[in-house]
């Protein structure tokens, strides 16, 4: 019995999710919105890792890597949101187009 679902289907979902995250990062002005886009991109990468772990030849390695990615995503979210809070406290806004104090 041939499998109805293949690697390509999951990679397609991963690619679509990645591009959504990319669009979110490119167009948002709210710093928290940009961080949400980064989470979408990391999830897309994880979908690809797990899909290769299931359909490829790597065995469990893909799942281990995706756990590391999840760990780093949590770390990134914690530090990123702490920085956003610091910026808000300093300037009263988290609009990235107004963060110009480092502009040369």
């Amino acid at each position: 019995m041939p499998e109805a679902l293949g690697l390509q289907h999951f990679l397609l979902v991963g690619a679509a999710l990645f591009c959504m995250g990319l669009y979110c990062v490119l167009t948002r002005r709210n710093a928290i919105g940009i961080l949400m886009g980064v989470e979408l991109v990391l999830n897309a990468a994880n979908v690809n890792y797990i899909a290769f772990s299931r359909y490829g030849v790597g065995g469990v390695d893909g799942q281990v890597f995706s756990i590391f990615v999840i760990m780093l995503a949590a770390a990134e979210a914690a530090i990123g949101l702490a920085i956003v809070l610091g910026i808000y406290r300093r300037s009263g806004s988290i609009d990235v187009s107004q963060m110009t104090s480092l502009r040369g």
Partner: protein
Amino acid sequence: MQGPDLSVAAFLLLSALTLGGGGGVIFSGNIVYSALSLMVSFFGVAGLYVMLEADFVAGVQVLVYVGGVLVLTLFAVMLTHRIEDIKVSNRGVGKLPGLAAALAMFAGLIAALEVAPWKLPAEGVAHESFASTQSIGNALLGRYVLPFEVASIVLLSVLVGAVVLSRKEVAEPRVRDDA
């Protein structure tokens, strides 16, 4: 045959959840709705993990993303907005160039997906399932023990760093000159 149809239906449903949640994140003008759509997307991705026989990672996904990252995001939203401007808090700029870039990226990925020589198991070799949790545990404490330990150091420094970054400024302590 019942099996393939059911798995295809489940795949379509979970993909729709994932991508619909993603669409909500990128098109909603209210950042709280964006965060809730992100939750839908995370649950869809967890379902896809279950379909790919990665039940442990699916559990981790729900625990860490939905239970941790999302709650943190909502906290940050609430702390950085006044209630009345949450509704207009999520404006986007440069929608057309962004859309063009994302679509170009998607087209490139699809093209790569068609031509890439994936290293797949040989035809006719049946896929063997393995106990996901047990193999991950063995891999983490065997082959990947060094990254595992580095991860714990990373998490510790993130913990300290987040506290340092987000604490309130305290007044300068007076210098004692009696010593």
